[in-house]
């Protein structure tokens, strides 16, 4: 007997999918903003001349880049309570995403910083700028511009990776899908639709990041 497709079986559960999309979006936005912020600070520490801080950040980066995201998530959600840090599913998911993206974006942004010609930094030094001023006004924007495509891809990867947060019952999109197919046994239809939803979200996210990049790096003669 051939399988009869019934996409209509999903309709009664649309609210679950909708909530899942919202939660995935929230996780991604918070994770991306804070994670990239962490990455900027990490990259600065790596590029700075403070060896101890640079090494600590180096260990963090290697630790995260060489372990699975799922294990990092489990460690935060199931492991940290042993130290008295008890987080909700959402908090644990968002923290895992921040920590993960923070490590990857540290390395990406560092490459951008290293690509800034030394002469520009010396020019800024000669103009009596201190380190913070040089980083803020001379280094960070051109550095981000150079690595924006790589950083954008990493943010998309983190959004897609958020699907494993269903494993700690964070009610994001994949969690919603798992739940629905457990109710109606329509695995094909549910995951087909969810695949499409992720695809659309990825495309929208990439477009959004492109627009943001254009806004950040656009030439504005606003003097």
């Amino acid at each position, binding site marked *: 007997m051939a399988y009869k497709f019934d996409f209509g079986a999903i309709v009664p559960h649309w609210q679950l999918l909708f909530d899942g999309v919202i939660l995935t979006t929230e996780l991604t936005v918070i994770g991306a903003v804070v994670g990239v912020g962490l990455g900027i600070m990490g990259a600065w520490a790596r590029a700075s001349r403070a060896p101890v801080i640079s090494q600590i950040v180096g260990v963090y980066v290697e630790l995260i880049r060489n372990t699975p995201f799922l294990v990092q998530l489990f460690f935060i959600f199931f492991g940290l309570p042993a130290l008295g840090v008890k987080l909700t599913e959402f908090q644990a998911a968002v923290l895992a995403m921040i920590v993960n993206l923070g490590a990857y974006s540290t390395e990406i942004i560092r490459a951008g910083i290293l690509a800034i*010609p030394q*002469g*520009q930094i*010396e*020019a*800024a*030094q*000669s*103009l*009596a*700028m*201190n380190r913070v*001023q040089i980083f803020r*006004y*001379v280094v960070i*924007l*051109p550095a981000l*511009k150079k690595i924006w495509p790589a950083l954008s891809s990493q943010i998309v990867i983190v959004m897609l990776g958020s699907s494993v947060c269903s494993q700690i019952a964070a009610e994001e999109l994949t969690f919603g899908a798992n739940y629905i197919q457990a109710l109606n046994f329509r695995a094909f239809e549910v995951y087909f639709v969810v695949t499409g939803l992720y695809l659309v979200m990825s495309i929208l996210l990439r477009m959004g990041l492109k627009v943001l990049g254009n806004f950040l*790096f656009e*030439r504005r*003669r606003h*003097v």
Partner: protein
Amino acid sequence: MSLVELHAIHKSFGELEVLKGIDLSIDEGQVIALIGKSGSGKSTLLRTINGLEVIDDGVIIVDGKKISDRDADLLGLRLQVGMVFQQFNLFPHYTALENVMLSPQVVKKQSKAEAKQIAEEMLAKVGLADKMMHYPDQLSGGQQQRVAIARALAMKPKVLLCDEVTSALDPELVNEVLAVVRQLAEEGMTLVMVTHEMRFAREVCDKLVFMHQGRIHETGDPETVFANPKTPELASFVGGLA
């Protein structure tokens, strides 16, 4: 007392001793040309004067104040000593005007209006009043270098260091930059310039400093030094140029 005094400056890169005891004083309004073969230590010496190179030994006194390599001292020093580089080093994400305004605003905390007024004045002085809204990659090399000069001048330094400011330029663009430097010299700006433009050095500079193997080998006023080099090294250096 001179504006800048260097006493027994020593500097090594690893095993290589590049400055082997330099004594030099620079008076207010003086225009000094540093000349010498490639690798003789001209750039390194210039860069010690604004703390881009940290010296191993010796004393630097600027405007009566002894400079150590503490951060506060270095920033204070750099307020007095401007620098222009061979490679222009403009900030690519800012317009010419923004390049010039940046440091007065963030370092000197000038208001935007004040910084803008000074920047416009400086850009007009280097002949770029009509290029203020251009980005560096929209300017020729000579124009970029003139923006870099305006940017340094906007900080109102007491001394301006110039490291081969025309060496990266196409020949036809050299003169527009030299004209600006000449004008600064005539206005009484204190200048220390590393240069290969011997004719310019002869016409504009008050004092010629010939470096050889990490030492000041010969010094004097340009006319005399060029006409009667005392050392064979300078004679051959001058001769090699002619």
